[in-house]
């Protein structure tokens, strides 16, 4: 990160290659579709680049980047919500495709956590996909470690109940 701040192109390329997949997974889990997540990732990097001086040397990098990504995501949703709310008044509602998960096999990560509320999905994604620690997630989401633990605990409870009910149906 320090070499990125010092304008080292090799270090910057390496940083982009290492962090982009993590940010993309996070944004993909939070957004409605892939093109939207791709746009959000580009916006996130532009924002990170513009404010790269705000990272203090010695501080962890991932909470700083995810806090910015989270902010870009919220801004992006607000913008797309405004656009959608205007578009829906003129066109017909599109038919929403039903998820095609096999009940017999283990559901994949994405379809499983899609059932969670946004705040819990965000925490599970940061913990399990990005491999961040509880303290790092707390920093990125501007909440306490206790609150992160609680959200994660509720998310896992809910996921277990979803798996149980899907098995009951089968």
């Amino acid at each position, binding site marked *: 990160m320090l070499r990125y*701040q*010092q*304008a080292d*192109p090799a270090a*910057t*390329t390496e940083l*982009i290659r290492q962090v*982009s*997949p*993590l940010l*993309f*997974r996070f944004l993909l889990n939070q957004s409605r579709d892939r093109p939207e997540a791709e746009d959000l990732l*580009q916006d996130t*990097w*532009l924002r990170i*680049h513009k*404010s*790269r*001086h*705000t*990272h*203090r*040397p010695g*501080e*962890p990098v*991932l909470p*700083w*980047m995810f*806090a*910015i990504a989270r*902010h870009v995501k919220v*801004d992006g949703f*607000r913008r797309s919500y405004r656009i959608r709310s205007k578009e829906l008044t003129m066109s017909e509602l599109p038919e929403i495709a039903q998820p095609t998960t096999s009940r017999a096999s*283990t*559901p*994949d*990560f994405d379809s*499983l956590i899609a059932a969670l509320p946004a705040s819990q999905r965000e925490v599970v994604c940061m913990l399990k*996909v990005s491999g*961040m*620690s*509880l303290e790092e*997630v*707390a*920093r990125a*989401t*501007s*909440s*306490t470690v206790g609150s992160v*633990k*609680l959200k*994660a*605990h509720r998310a*896992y*409870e809910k*996921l*277990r109940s979803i*798996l*149980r009910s899907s*098995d009951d149906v089968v």
Partner: protein
Amino acid sequence: MSCEDLDRLRSSSSDHSSTWSAEAKAHLSTCPRCAQLQESLDSAPDDLLPDALQRSIEAQILPGLTAVTPLPGVAWIATNLILSSIFIATLANWHLGVAGWRARSDLQLFVDLALLAVAIGTLAKTLAVRMMPGSSDTKPLAGYVAAPLIALAVADLLLFGYRWNPNFFPIALWCWEIGITCAAISAPLFWMILRRGLWLNRVAQCAATGLLAGLVGVAVLEIYCPYLDRLHIGAGHIGAALTASLVGAAVGAVLDRIERR
């Protein structure tokens, strides 16, 4: 180990299940539900980013890459904010006088100034820390704004008596104007110190900066104003800090709106 215990273990660590204790692994092998959930969580894919997107990001960033100076340390920024506060308060009281200092008892003076010093120091530190997104201070900023105002109001109630003054409104308005003027002089100075930060919650951060400027006004008034009436201090002195904080929040909301356009 029960399913709930395993949930607690998952919630308190981001580690892969392969690093768990033998007891947790034993539960996973006997409970199909937990095993199924863990399999899904461990299967989180990590290689989905298209190469074209990666290259596009690099193409956007690398050509305009220039060296930047990172933010100064928290202590340096907080010290600057505190010294600026002291400088403005000293200058204002040098101009207005210290009749309030003389009129107050030792206890009143000590409690008032100690509360103000703690509030200004804490606000300066939290603002300095929060210039960097994802900082270690994750407590809600609203608490930092509310706590000094509540503490000052409680101290006002406990330390000062009430005596109706027929000139209450003009005197309170006079003090409020002095407080607001001091805040208006302090705010641009604070903005100069804090402007390089990235404010993700602009409304809350501008409200906190407004309150810090307002507290400088309160400090000036506590030293200057000899009217020791709790209603006067509440409306004219603490009211000025509250107004400065509200104005800060409004400015933050406007800036936020402009940025989102």
